[in-house]
């Protein structure tokens, strides 16, 4: 019995020490204690402040962009092979939701029946990722094969996650997370969590709502206004062009509008890298790199268009217009920039501005730090009030055994906090409520045992026998009651998010720790007390 007692006491003390270490480390000063505590116990967004943003990548835009580019390539190919056609377009024109991605198709009308086989073999050879369906003897529809469509979509999301991650990096946050979210069927969602960000507007600006990068052929411009441009063109824009405004640079520059091609030569998907630099005359320029495929296409285009201009269009606004000096393949530079700022900004747009498709915000929770501070303050006060009430009642009702229960409760709370620290769990406001609730529920186990002991004493058993029986009879009831709440919390954890999860976690850990403290620790304390006296007539309970 005595050896057992020592062993058990050692286990308890060691557990205590490990837990305390987990919470506050080995502090050498008061300030370090607070510091360690803050580092070990991670606060959730609702306590620390910050932004939780759920965005949906508009993959349908990437699919359409792909179809547009395919349309251009096909036109070129048909011309080269002298296959005629009447019209070609991409439908649907309006793609407001991600589900529209599946219905995007390229329609070719008016291919003469004599050229059908030439047409079919051209498509089969050069466009293997598309399925060609004949609508009638002269009209066809091309749609991406399901596997290729899926590839485009997943690739787009992955690139968006990377790009957004890069952009967020510029905020210089220590802790942030950008991750893909959502179950099958809605895998286009990205969850961005920015703890400590006190300016959600800036974060959203940086992520950009629909920042799509395109490099387009400039047909004509600049025009001083949209109306002026339309007037000059006789009221209708030529086929395949659009009017885009130039992003104003500082003050003193009026609006400028350019007529550019609708389909871009290069999109963000092909942009690999960009950085600001200085040329041999110390003038600022931006160097950029494209992907291999992009480089090939760009090379063909620039070779055929030396002397013409191209525009860098970001979010449907022109950020830069440059003249093509020579053939550029996968690495080029944009010169003639006014200042270092311009070069740096442009490189940033090119580099991080290459979201392959737009994003739409599905959910936002932005919590200011003052609300977090308030919540913590209130949570602590409520916790202390509850704790004091419970301790008082336990001591008054169960007398010295109440001390036993309070010690077990203290250890329970310490284990709970340590577990939160070791598992890197996040403490939310409902999580604090969970800790407070654990205090109330933990005491339940002690009450069960004590009431049982009282009963056994009433039947006339000796003190030691009563204590032993009390514990053993109450054991299964304790397990039963804990299991049900743990089952509840397990489902809460599965289906909940953020704050609710924090609650489920703290409650579950608290209850599991409680099984240890209420039974093992309480019993050890009782045994310790009882082992000191030979024949205990009365137990203070």
């Amino acid at each position: 019995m005595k050896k057992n007692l020592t062993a058990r006491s050692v286990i308890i003390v060691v557990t205590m020490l490990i837990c305390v270490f987990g919470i506050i480390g080995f502090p050498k000063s008061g300030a370090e204690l607070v510091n360690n505590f803050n580092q070990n116990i991670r606060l959730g967004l609702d306590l620390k402040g910050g932004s939780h943003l759920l965005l949906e990548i508009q993959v349908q835009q990437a699919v359409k962009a792909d179809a547009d580019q395919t349309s251009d390539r096909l036109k070129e190919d048909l011309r080269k092979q002298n296959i005629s056609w009447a019209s070609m377009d991409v439908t649907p024109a309006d793609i407001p939701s991600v589900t529209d991605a599946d219905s995007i198709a390229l329609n070719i009308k008016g291919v003469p029946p004599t050229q059908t086989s030439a047409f079919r073999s051209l498509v089969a050879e050069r466009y293997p990722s598309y399925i060609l369906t004949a609508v009638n003897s002269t009209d066809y529809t091309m749609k991406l094969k399901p596997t290729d469509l899926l590839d485009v979509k997943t690739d787009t999301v992955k690139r968006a996650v990377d790009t957004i991650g890069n952009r967020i990096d510029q905020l210089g946050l220590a802790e942030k997370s950008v991750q893909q979210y959502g179950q099958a069927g809605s895998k286009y969602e990205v969850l961005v969590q920015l703890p400590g960000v006190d300016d959600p507007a800036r974060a959203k600006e940086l992520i950009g709502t629909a920042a799509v990068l395109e490099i387009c052929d400039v047909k004509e411009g600049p025009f001083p206004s949209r109306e002026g441009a339309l007037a000059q063109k006789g009221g209708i824009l030529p086929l395949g062009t659009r009017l885009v405004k130039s992003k104003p640079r500082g003050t003193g520059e009026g609006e400028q509008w350019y007529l550019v091609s609708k389909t871009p030569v290069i999109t963000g998907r092909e942009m690999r890298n960009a950085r600001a630099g200085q040329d041999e005359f110390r003038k600022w320029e931006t160097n950029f790199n494209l992907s291999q495929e992009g480089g090939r296409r760009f090379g063909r285009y620039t070779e055929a268009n030396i002397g013409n201009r191209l525009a860098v269009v970001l979010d449907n606004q022109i950020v830069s217009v440059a003249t093509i000096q020579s053939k550029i393949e996968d690495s080029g530079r944009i010169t003639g920039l006014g200042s270092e700022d311009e070069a740096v900004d442009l490189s940033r747009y090119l580099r991080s501005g290459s979201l392959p498709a737009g994003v739409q915000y599905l959910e936002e929770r932005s919590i200011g730090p003052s609300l977090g501070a308030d919540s913590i303050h209130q949570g602590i006060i409520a916790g202390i009030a509850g704790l004091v009430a419970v301790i008082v009642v336990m001591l008054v009702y169960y007398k010295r055994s109440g001390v036993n229960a309070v010690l077990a409760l203290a250890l329970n709370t310490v284990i709970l906090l340590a577990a939160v620290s070791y598992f890197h769990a996040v403490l939310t406001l409902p999580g604090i409520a969970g800790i407070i609730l654990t205090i109330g529920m933990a005491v339940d186990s002690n009450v069960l045992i004590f009431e049982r002991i009282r009963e056994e004493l009433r039947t006339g058993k000796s003190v030691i026998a009563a204590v032993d029986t009390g514990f053993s009879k109450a054991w299964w009831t304790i397990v039963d009651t804990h299991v049900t709440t743990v089952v509840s919390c397990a489902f809460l954890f599965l289906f909940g998010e953020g704050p609710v999860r924090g609650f489920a976690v703290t409650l579950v850990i608290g209850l599991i720790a409680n099984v240890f403290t209420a039974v093992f620790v309480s019993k050890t304390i009782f045994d310790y007390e009882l082992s000191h006296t030979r024949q205990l007539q009365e137990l203070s309970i």
Partner: protein
Amino acid sequence: MQLFKNTNYDFLGKKWPFIIASLVLSVAGFASIAIQGGLRMGIDFKGGALMTVKFAYPPPLDKIRGAFSKSGKIKGDVSVQDFRDPQAKNEVEIGTELVEEKQLNVNRQAMEEVLAATFAQPGSGKLDFSNTGEDALAGRLRDALARANVPMSEPQLQKLTKDILGFRDTPPRSGIITDFNQLSSVPGVNSAIINTLQQECYLAPYHVLQTQMVGPKVGADLRNKAVYATLYALGGMLVYIAFRFEWIYGLGAVIACFHDTLITIGLFSIFHEEISMTVIAALLTLVGYSMNDTIVIFDRIRENLKFSRREPLEAVMNRAVNQTLSRTIMTSGLTFLTVIALFIWGGPVLHGFSFALVCGIIVGTYSSVFVASPIVLFWHNYTDKRPKAAAAGTTVRRGEASAPKTPAKAAK
């Protein structure tokens, strides 16, 4: 000190008043929900955009409403209301209704703009100190301090902005200071810095505490999750209890839990409280907790049944309840103490959560005795009566004491 020593109340005999009370409460709850046309849903389930704003003075609700209705930027209804919690002083909730995501984002942006246009000085070129962040403040101060020839290294500047904003955000100021001179107690702040702040910034009379936006997709998702979590949790518990006790005990316990949840939701409706995801968490916790109570009593019943097979079930149940009475009152009482502490001091964010727990603990405790046990009792009485009726048929019936056996058998 011991309360409830050797009590012997006839709980199950007096079950009817409590069952009726339960029914009345349930009906009242349903009626309230029906009259109000549904439950008050928080933004989690209702969707829309919601901005919580703290003012430096009691917020002028009419002025705010007027400003929003006059502005053309927001499509749909805008609601402006006071916070219901006494700890939320001068706080206002401005909400727009659920629209599809694109417009919702526009609305959300517009809310901030309208508020700024009405109460702040957006065109003045000065920084809104009440609603600024560390980066923006540091950016402003960097140039201004350099111009004012106040020496400041970059790490010093970062620490200074952090401390200044930390001071602004801790209670009791909680985001609003009324005068820049209040900052003099922040380490590192001297009169030169206060002057610079006064030149570069102004103090808007409001501070945005939080902004939430839930689009239709996410709203539907959260609603589904809430329902699934509840159903699965109840199901899981039914399985567990059926496994540990007879199945009728499991059913009794689950019905008791359903009863608790329904009455609590009814109370939410009667008291005009909002249902959010954390409230669902509270309800599920209640379910688990109510199961606790029920299990403790059932455990005792099972234990007592082992020793007294001849006693009628009602007496055994009564004894079990009386034996566990002390424990039940103590536990519920102690948990109730902690939950009341949460309700009184926990603050507005946890308001719905703690309200659910307060109601639920009271209801959950009495349902274990007056709902769960009677159900088991009714079932056993019903199933026990049938074999008794069969036995009665073979013995002589009272009115036909002298009749021969055969006609009695035929009459059966």
